């Protein structure tokens, strides 16, 4: 059994651009916004970065493919820079690459940075893309909400939940995130929305209406990691360390066989189990001070509460409606607004989640600051619930 990376890597600096419809800047400037903040936070020089992982999902509307354009944008000269792409888990993957390099001893200081410029397409929603020459021949060309709507049908039929009850619960998920987004200065959507508006919004992919879908945003986020020893040598006192980063990717079982009932996300359960083990978490509902999960769609967040073993199977509807995951609930979820309201520039999202946990752990979250937070979790879900990638990380004070 591998020993894992728990407490082998410390985050010494983080940055996050303002998210939203950033008509004012291109990807290069978004990267710089996050990078500058992280560098200032870390208090290091560019020359101290030994290696970098840059993440983005859609190469055609960002800086372009490979790591070269991002390295050029940030003037990272002559060091190893790798481009990471693993759909919505891209940001966490970049952090994982940088953390593993530090944990292995291959480098002292590494940069992880993710970005996405989604608003250079000319239309709303995510860019349309190919699924590969073979898959394009047979897979339906559905939108992202259509993929996640399958989870809503599967969950509803597995637990015999009336359509209206599920709709009300997922409506509460979005309502809560809109409340939280108001307190996030860098968030895309900073407006509270009445529950009636959410429930009666136009349908995008039934049962998901407009407010069940997250913001489509531009943005970038970055982390600088090193060993706890170097961090202390650099003068850092309160250390945020990585307790675990785990991933799980589909092999086709859910989408090709009857070994999945449509009501949960197998990858999240796999990644969470492994991450809890790596981090030493035995009772997540008690131990996690806050969580930032992949609420690309409201139904995703609701089901994720069960997949992270926070709610009992079939009980998330009740827990959500009871406010368990609200800002003042037992397990505050998306206190920065989440993908729903902070926004979802795909390649940046995993690092944006880490940014919120990091700031909460260090007591720097301003109006959003929660009390007594010592450990937090991030969760990304890339692809679709039945054919995708889940990434779970646990961050905490050392």
């Amino acid at each position: 059994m591998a020993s894992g990376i728990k407490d082998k890597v410390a985050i010494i600096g983080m940055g996050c651009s303002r998210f939203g419809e950033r008509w004012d800047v291109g990807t290069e400037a978004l990267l710089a916004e996050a990078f500058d903040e992280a560098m200032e936070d870390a208090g290091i020089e560019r020359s101290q970065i030994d290696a970098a992982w840059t993440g983005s999902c859609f190469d055609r509307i960002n800086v372009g493919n490979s790591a070269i354009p991002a390295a050029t944008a940030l003037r990272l000269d002559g060091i190893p820079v790798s481009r990471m792409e693993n759909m919505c888990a891209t940001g966490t993957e970049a952090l994982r690459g940088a953390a593993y390099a530090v944990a292995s001893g291959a480098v002292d200081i590494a940069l992880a940075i993710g970005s996405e410029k989604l608003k250079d397409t000319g239309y709303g929603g995510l860019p349309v893309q190919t699924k590969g020459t073979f898959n394009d021949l047979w897979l339906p060309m559905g939108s992202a909400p259509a993929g996640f709507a399958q989870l809503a049908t599967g969950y509803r039929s597995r637990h015999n939940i009336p359509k209206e009850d599920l709709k009300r619960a997922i409506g509460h998920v979005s309502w809560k995130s809109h409340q939280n987004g108001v307190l996030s200065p860098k968030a895309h959507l900073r407006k509270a929305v009445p529950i009636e508006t959410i429930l009666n919004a136009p349908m995008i992919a039934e049962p998901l209406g407009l407010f069940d879908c997250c913001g489509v945003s531009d943005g970038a986020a970055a982390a600088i990691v090193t060993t706890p020893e170097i961090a202390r040598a650099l003068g850092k006192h309160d250390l945020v360390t990585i307790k675990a980063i785990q991933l799980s990717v589909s092999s086709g079982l859910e989408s090709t066989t009857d070994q999945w009932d449509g009501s949960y996300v197998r990858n999240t359960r796999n990644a969470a189990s492994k991450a809890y083990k790596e981090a030493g978490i035995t009772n997540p509902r008690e131990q996690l001070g806050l969580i930032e999960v992949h609420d690309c769609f409201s139904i995703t967040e609701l089901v994720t509460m069960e997949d992270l073993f926070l709610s009992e199977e079939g009980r998330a509807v009740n827990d959500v409606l009871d406010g368990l995951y609200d800002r003042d609930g037992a397990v505050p979820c998306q206190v920065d607004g989440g993908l729903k309201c902070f926004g979802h520039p795909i390649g940046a999202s995993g690092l944006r989640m880490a940014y919120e946990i990091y700031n909460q752990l260090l007591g720097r979250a301003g109006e959003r600051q929660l009390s007594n937070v010592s450990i937090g979790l991030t969760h990304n879900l890339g692809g679709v619930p039945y054919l995708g990638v889940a990434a779970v990380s646990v961050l905490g004070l050392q």
Partner: protein
Amino acid sequence: MTFGIVAWGAYVPRNRLDRGVIAATHAWLAPSLKGQAKGRRAFCNWDEDVVTMGVEAARNCLDARDRSVVRSIQLASTTTPTADLQSSAIVAVALRLGRNVRTFDFGGSQRAGIAGLSAALRASGGPALILASERLRAKPASPQEMQYGAGAAAFLLGTENVAAEVLGSSSITTLLVDHFRAAGVAHDYFWEERWIRDEGYLKIGVEAIRTALDEAGVAAADVASFIFPAPSRGVGAAVAKAAGIPAEAVADGLESDVGFTGTAHGPLMLTGVLDRAEPGQVIVVTGFGQGCDVVVLRATGAIASGRPGEPLAVLVAEGQTTQSYAQMAAFYGEIDPDQGMRAERDTKTALTEQYRSSDQVNGFVAGKCSSCGQVQFPQLAYCVSCQAPASALEPQCLAEEPASVLTYTADALTFHPSPPMYMGFVQFDAGARLLMEFVDVDPDGFDVGTRLRMRFRIKERDMTRGYYRYFWKAAPVA
């Protein structure tokens, strides 16, 4: 040994438009269309064409019969989607008729449907699948827009269990051009209806019928069913009267719920007649255009054995009415509505990949693992359940396998020529599962557990290069 029709089957698209809606749309321009505003016409969905309708008619005809006996397949149409790419080959691969089946397309005239059937019956070759399929376009506000429909028919010919045998036939060839369509042009150009009737149907048609009945040794009065396909109403009755055929023998021209289907119309009407034929009954079927072809058939004692999975009357009754003229006009390319930037997605087909996977994609062939039993689509390099190598996967076609809805949604965001796109997981009883598009969905009553059957449809239309690719979609069982 008698060579004749062993089995038959039809296909009619589910979409119907009230002719009153068409007439009302054009009332400002062509008020006279109101005179034709009775009943409904069938029209193809965006993903239905000559190929897909041909496949469905053939499946209905072949039903549970042994397909391996089929030696050749011919497809008659004037509206195949490609000028140079055999539609019958796409049909043959979808039907999994085997690599050695002989395929050919022909058209050139709406006469081709019955001319092809007549020629095949006379040639007495090996077991053959004879198809006629048509998706005619009509200029908005033209009489043809009111008259035309869409559909396909299929006949299995052979010597075993012959259900209908040939008693006689005739052909006349003249240069009476009732209508024509120039190469590369979308619409037909028609001459005056009264001239076509008086000089064409009533003279050339009647002469050809008399010749064929003489050859068959059948008196006109003894004809039980008479088929004379024509775009306008009443033609069959007029020709029957002139030829001395009893009025009650005149077959339903399908005007009320389908419309005229060109090359496929005589064959389509014939399937409806055969569905109800009794042993010994004489059937006269004709095809008109630059002359006339006539075939005189007699139902044998085995007539009931040739019946299809679904009779024509059921297909006609299954029609789903839309009130949107614009939808039909858009599906047929008569209008080009803005569909947003998402429609700009490039759908170029990798022809190399299509060839490598044609058995899977066109034939809908899944793999059954001989090691663990899992049926899986797609077939990749290893079994999804036990990781056995691909060599362990035995072919298992899913096209005729029963299935039901596991999950679904109506996707209003993605580009789709007929939004919303219904898609979700299809769970086959045999164990296979895959994400598919749903078609012919009536939102009321469609839910988890709804039983499904497979339909061969257009998957993507590459408008830049003019190439259509095909795959299977799932439709609720009516």
